[in-house]
Each structure stands twice: as C-alpha cells, then as structure tokens.
C-alpha cells in the first residue's frame, strides 16, 4: 500500500486538518507516514499545499515530486488544477467545487469545473454547501475529506476515529458536527 496525496487550498482553509485526520487513520492502520506542512508567510491568504505520504514500506522523501502523486485533494477548484504536474498519469483529484475567490483575476468558474470533470476519476463535491446543510458550516474541509474517502482506500471507520481524536479537545458537539460533515461529503460526492 502506497499513497502520495497533495492537499491543496488557500491559507486558512484547513488543509492541515484533513492531513491530520488521514494521518491518524493511517497511523491506526499501522502504516508509515510523512507529511510536509506549510507555515509562515505563505499562510496569509496565498495558495498552500501539503504533501501527505502513506506507505506500508519505508518513506524517504518528505516532499512529493512531479509525477509522483496518486491524488490531489483540494478545497478550491483552481488550486486542484495547480498541482496537475505533480499527479501521476493515473492519479485522481477530489475537489471542492465551491471556489475561494480572494484575488481579482480568479478564472472563469465554469471553465475550471469543466476542466476538472474532463479528467478521469475526478471526485467533486460542493463541500461548502453540504457542510452547511449538515449544520457544520465551518467543516467544509472535513466534508471534502468525506467525498475523497470514496477513493482513498482507507477504512471509513478509521477516518471517523481520526475525526474523533483530532476534534476531541473541542468538545462532543464539534466532533459530531464534523462526523456529519464527513458523511454528507461522502454522500454528496459526484464521481
């Protein structure tokens, strides 16, 4: 088992939380993990990404190179496409279809979504909407994880356990909201 994932989004959207939950699930499965994070200046509303590597063998590089990623999971449609050169030819994308527009020249939304749908195996979800409908409007990131879970190959129960562990310190209500968001994302995923 070997899975190299690029998590993408905009600083502040919560990609590291997705990475942490997947990491928890992989750890519980007895897999090795490396996760390269982004801190500092790039966090201020700029594009951010994190490389998450999971394997049942030794993982050497902390970074995922071009053409190495099995998947791109992105909280914004344009940010998903930014990492195409890192994706393997048979790699897949899970993307939030709701754009995060904090720049004046954000490209045409429909063109972005068409480009994503054109690619084989893309998982799309309006993570903002499904999270809101699940009564967890701050959990778009976990809703997207729910959609991506359809293709991740990690047991869904382990992801749920991951959510429980990661959010435990924020109280039961926050844990429940995130579990609802993840489930809504799973059910709302378009493949």
């Amino acid at each position, binding site marked *: 088992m*070997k899975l190299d994932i690029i998590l993408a989004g*905009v*600083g502040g959207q919560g990609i590291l939380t997705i990475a942490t939950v997947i*990491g928890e699930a992989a*750890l519980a499965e007895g897999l*090795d*993990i*490396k*996760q*390269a*994070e*982004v*801190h*500092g*200046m*790039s*966090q*201020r*509303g*700029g*594009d951010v990404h994190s490389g998450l590597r999971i394997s049942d*063998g030794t*993982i*050497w*590089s*902390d*970074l*995922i*190179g*071009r*053409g*190495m*990623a099995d998947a791109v999971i992105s909280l914004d449609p*344009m*940010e998903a*496409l*930014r990492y*195409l*050169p*890192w*994706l*393997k*030819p048979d790699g897949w994308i899970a993307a939030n279809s709701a754009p995060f527009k*904090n*720049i004046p*020249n*954000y*490209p*045409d939304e429909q*063109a*972005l979504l068409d*480009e994503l749908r054109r690619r084989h195996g893309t998982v799309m979800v309006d993570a903002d909407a499904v999270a809101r409908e699940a009564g967890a409007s701050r959990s778009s990131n976990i809703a997207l994880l729910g959609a991506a879970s359809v293709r991740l190959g990690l047991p869904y129960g382990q992801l749920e356990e991951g959510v429980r562990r990661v959010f435990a310190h924020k109280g039961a209500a926050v844990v429940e909201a995130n579990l609802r968001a993840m489930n809504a994302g799973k059910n709302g995923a378009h493949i």
Partner: protein
Amino acid sequence: MNEKLLLLGDEAIALGAINAGLTGVYAYPGTPSTEITEYIQHHPLARERGLHSRWCANEKTALEAALGVSYIGKRALVCMKHVGMNVAADAFVNAAMTGVNGGLVVVAADDPSMHSSQNEQDSRFYGKFAFVPILEPSSQQEAYDMTSEAFDLSERLGVPVMMRITTRMAHSRAIVSVGAASEQTPMRMPSSPADWILLPVNARRRYLSLLETYDRAAEYASSRNLCVDGPDRSTGIIACGIGYNYVMEHFTDDACRDAPQPRFSGAMPHPLLRITHYPLPVEAIRRMAAECGRLLVVEDGQPFVEEQVRGVLPSAAVVAGRLSGELPRVGELTPDNVRAALGLGPLQGAGPCPLVVPRPPALCAGCGHRDLYNVLNEELRNYPEAKVFSDIGCYTLGALPPFRAIDSCVDMGASITMAKGAADGGLHPSIAVIGDSTFTHSGMTGLLDAVNSNSPITVVISDNLTTAMTGGQDSAGTGRLEAICQGLGVDPAHICVVVPLPANMGQIREILRRELDHQGVSVIIPRRECIQTLKRKL
C-alpha cells in the same frame, strides 16, 4: 517501552531536548524554527519541571541567556531561523571561545528557496567559522535522537553544538519513537573560571584549545557518518542531511518506472557517504574519490560541502553538485532536481493547466496594517519625495498591490536606521514602518541613534500586540511601547497612539501631517490587535 508519536522535525528536537534534561529554551520566533519553542511551552513535563520557555527579545539575548544557563552547569537550547544567526553571531562565535559547562545546543533552521525569508544563507558556514561541531539530521527520528547526542557532545567537548535543519525537516511530520526523560543536570560551576573572561591573555589560550577541540570533533564526526558501499563506482554520492532522503527515494522500484533501464531495486547501487556530522570527514571523502570516477554532492542550501570537497581532492577529481550545474545553484533540493542529478529522466505528470493564476499571500481582511497603509498612501500623495523604509513582518506584504506602500525591507530593525540615514542625507519626509515585535527585537537602539542626532524622521510602530507573521507569539514590549520610546528620549509630545480603523482615518491623517512636518523624531503607534489572535479568542 518507547512511545510512537507523529511529530514535526521541530517538535522532535523539542522533545529530544526536554528528554535530555533541558533547563531552558531561549528563542525569538522565526519560520521555520518557531514550533520548537512552542512545543516546549505546551509540554506537560516542561511545565511540571518549570523549564524556561518564554520568548526572548532577539536571538542574541537568547543565546547569551542560554550561555548563562550553561555557565552554571545546566543544559540550554537556543532556536532561531537562519538570519537569526546573524543577530546572534557575536554571542555564538564567542561562546565557542569561552567554551561551555552545561550542554549548549544551538538550532539553526535554514530556509532554502526562501519560503518565508529574505535570503537563503547556510548556517553551516557559521559552525565552521566558529569551530563548532554541527549535527544535521536526515529524519525526524534522528532529529529526536541527535538532540540528546548534541547535548552529550557539547559537554564532552566543552563547546556549543549546532543542529542545522532546513524547512522540510522542520515542517514535516513523521513517526518518531521516543524514550524516557532524563533528570535535569545539577548546578555545577565551571572548573576553569578564567576561560569565561575573554581578555586577550585568556582568549589566546582558549583559541588554541578550541582548535584542538575541533580536531577531536572531526574525529568524532568521522566515526558517526554512514558509509554504504555499492557496486556501481562510476559515481560516489555524498548526501547531507535530508539530501539523503531524496537520493534514497529514487532507489525504489516505483520511482524507477520511467527510468530507461530498471537498474535499481531497493538496494543502493552507488557507494554513498551520508553526512549528518560535521566537520567534514576528509579521509572518507578522499577514499571515496580514489575509488569512484566522480563524486556527486547532494546538500540542501549552499554548496558548503561541495566547495570543501573540491578543496581536499586533487584538481583532476570530478565533483558534481550545485557548482557544476548537476543541481541548481539556488533553491531547495526536491525529489525532482535530485532525480535529474542522479541521471534519471523526469517522471511523467500532466502539463500545467493554463487556467491557473498566481495567488500571492496578502494582509488578512480586517487587519490593522491595511488601515495604516490606506491612510499613509492617502497622505503621502502630498509628498511625492517621501520614502517609506519598512521592516520584517506581516506588514512587509504592504509592498504588494493594492498598497505598494513601502520602499524597503532588509533586516530586523533596518527601517528606523535607514530612515535616519536617509533623513541625515537630506530626504524629507523619511518614514519608518516597523512592527511592535521587530521594534523590540532590533529597532530600539536605532531609535536611540535617531534621538541622539535629532534626525527628522517619522517612525510608525504598527502595534498588533503580537508577533503575527510566525503565528501570534508574545511580543516583548506589549503595553510598554510609549514608555520605551520616552525612555529612549523621544519627546512625549511627539509620541501619538491611534487606533487604525476606517472611522479614524481623518484623525490619523491629521496627526501624520503634523508629525511629518516635525523637525525631529516622531513616533506614531497605530494600535489594534491582530485579527488572527483576536479570532482565536472568539
């Protein structure tokens, strides 16, 4: 029984230090080193033991305080980003001259590719310059293990030890197996007190002793660097720190799927020398050069090892690396550029998508710096000659559109002193924009210079009550900025505090106009809490 934890490289160093019987960590925040100190601040055992972990005013005060801890026989950790080494350099070089009593470990976190920095200087040069041994872990597990090793080595050799990491080690998580915590070392005064008084008569003696210690450090390093043999002697590889990982990454089956011939199958094909300990193991390098047709040096940062390797080998030896172009001269190592240096073709990814546009970082919505730059830009339309010298922090983003409000960003504190110099030379208005934390880090002495020469400058201390860029750490002068400025001699009539909000634009503009025309030092303090630290409290 060892516990397995998922830790950042920074956190692995922090826990390694706590478990090595640390007495205190001394640091100023700086990406990518900040999380070391933060981990110690929040660790239960560190709290229970009352370990010092409060942020220091700057890297120099941090290193000197840590040297004081070492003087009394206890263990201290100092952490900084690479440019912090410039600030701490005086203390660092002379701490090697005095030597240490309790273990003193200095972590320098370099930022090749300048993800969050103004240059990509390589801290290993400082280690060599000061005759200080350097450890450079290649994994998070080694980062944990080597911290304790570094304290032991520091005490055994009687000198500070540098731990050198780069961004990808600092900010990457991996599983680390951690052991039990040792007891703290007891108070024990130096056995040779004269060593600590660097009068020339003592310093000359200490310098000879330091050089002799460096030879012993080299012997130790030679025993610790990993040598792996391999059948293909056309190339021998010297891989430093995390450079080793990028090399190993390509000797797996999966990585070789696009290689012209699947030559590698999980075993190292070439002789390899992994450098995790410096000074450089010169004999091992000479042996490898004698056996191999060519040497490839893979190191993150500047060509520190490559230059030395060229120096110790006969001129006919073929050395490949950043200087010869096999690896890029600038920027961090990646799996891609190391792959190319190993002679493997690129892995196939998709082409870039033409729809994608850049998304640069920006000041947060609702940030007080935004209001400051809006009003400053408005008012400075009346002064086309004006220059705004700025500094290191979130507010440096004021250089980007839509603000384009600043003319310089050089080093911590340079805003005030550059404004002073420009004003001394005849520029008017000459304005400095500096953050509260940067002001107490290195701006106060410059302000004193400006007061002493009555330089006509307007200093804006944009006070968001925190060290925001690195994630909201305590700022050393919070609540005392006016008193500090007064104490340095600024006329209280020209110290003005304002609240940077759109509603106050008229008032701030009036104050600005008045102070720009003042023929002396003015300080304006726009004060409003950082929007990020405020959000965390809601």
